[in-house]
């Protein structure tokens, strides 16, 4: 494996073994112990569009493991505004760093960068394409709660058309035999080519506009943000977005172990009343971004994570 561009770059065995590394790295991610596995290594953070969690969690992951980070900084003040091609930017950063995490507004940018680079590329989002490092932390969160990734019923809800997190996640889940219920407004349905890919993998996929009617059977409900700018007028947005909101009263009859996830930031999709229910997992999920990315950085840099890591020890 050179880089991680889409989930197809990982086998199911790779996924489980990286998640196993991640669980052992938890005390390091929490700052309870210091383990400088990546000392002397430099991560290049190339974020051509805004990012809070992904960029910060990559940076935290690298630093917790003793590595260092260089940032592209604000695109508006970098050579990108002078018309530099992605190819040239990558050539430069490739020479400065050992591994690159990138986000770019254009789809396919990460694959393009990987073809141009010597060092591994971690795709932190390419347009409405893929976001596989998010998928790894999502899978880690699911595994933590359910103890397995196999055969779960997962509702993916909200903007399934432009939401790259659900594109990568759906690919991974069907490979573990999960049943997918895709709940979205008609305008924001999962792209047909992705549905075709999922069905080619033999996936059980249901498309529906109904969210609340499907959550009682679910093991995981994965909410995403519906963006106002996707709609021609505000009334239409208000009407549609209202149907993709969860309130604590909506989860009264769900399975006891059902978990609610969200890649964050949320707007109104999950009411704060849900935060205190036993189902809310989105803040743990955000924290898991650090540990999942630590495990990925180690794997792509060919650094073995020790079989035993003791918390609280120096």
């Amino acid at each position: 494996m050179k880089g991680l561009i889409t989930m197809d770059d990982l086998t199911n065995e790779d996924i489980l073994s990286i998640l196993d590394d991640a669980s052992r790295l938890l005390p390091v991610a929490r700052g309870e112990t210091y383990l400088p596995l990546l000392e002397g290594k430099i991560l290049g953070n190339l974020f051509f569009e805004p990012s809070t969690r992904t960029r910060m969690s990559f940076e935290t992951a690298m630093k917790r493991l003793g590595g260092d980070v260089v940032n592209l900084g604000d695109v508006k003040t970098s050579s990108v505004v002078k018309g530099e091609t992605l190819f040239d930017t990558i050539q430069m950063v490739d020479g400065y760093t050992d591994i690159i995490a990138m986000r770019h507004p254009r789809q396919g940018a990460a694959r393009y960068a990987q073809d141009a680079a010597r060092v591994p590329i971690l795709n932190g989002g390419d347009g409405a394409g893929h976001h596989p490092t998010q998928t790894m932390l999502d899978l880690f969160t699911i595994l933590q709660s359910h103890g397995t990734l196999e055969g779960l019923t997962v509702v993916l809800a909200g903007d399934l058309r432009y939401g790259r997190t659900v594109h990568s996640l759906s690919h991974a889940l069907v490979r573990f035999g999960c049943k997918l219920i895709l709940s979205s407004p008609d305008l924001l349905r999962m792209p047909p080519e992705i549905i075709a890919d999922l069905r080619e993998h033999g996936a059980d996929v249901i498309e529906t506009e109904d969210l609340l009617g499907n959550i009682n059977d679910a093991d995981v409900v994965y909410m995403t943000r519906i963006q106002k700018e996707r709609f021609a007028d505000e009334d239409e947005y208000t009407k549609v977005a209202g149907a993709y909101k969860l309130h604590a009263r909506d989860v009264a009859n769900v399975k006891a172990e059902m978990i609610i996830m969200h890649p964050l930031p949320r707007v109104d999709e999950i009411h704060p009343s849900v935060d205190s229910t036993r189902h809310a997992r989105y803040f743990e999920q955000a924290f898991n971004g650090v540990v999942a990315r630590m495990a990925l950085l180690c794997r792509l840099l060919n650094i073995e994570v020790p079989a035993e890591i003791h918390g609280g020890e120096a």
Partner: protein
Amino acid sequence: MADEHNMRRVTAIRNGTVIDHIPSGQSLKVLELLNIARDTSVPVSLVMNVPSKKMGSKDIVKVEDRELTQTELDRLALVAPDSSIAIIRAYTVAEKLEVNLGNEVRNVVQCTFSNCITQNLREPLAHRLRVTSTDPLTLRCHYCQRPQDLDELIHNLL
């Protein structure tokens, strides 16, 4: 007989390339694909919508004094994957060639997706479309992975 008659609709060529069994109406696209449409130095004959036993009806293109290379001909797979090609020398068929698409179309056309990284033509890496199925022909961009609309793709020749 029908095929022989069709071939005679246009005078036999002495040297050059004959592309037969082009789907009816696609010959103009074939000329585009082969960059022949803009090349005024060689005589080109076009036969359109003639009866064919194999295809019902078909187009034929004859290019004089030029032997198209296998790489040039492989571009035809986008519009005429089943075409048959003959290299003519001194009025006789010297070689028969077949279109071979392979598993990737490289630097022939640009991805049709408006937000693909390859839309910036200053980016220097090759335009690459993966062949995901040959019958029917389906292609996906190597970079953005979007499936390509073949009718639209023909307008994106590089």
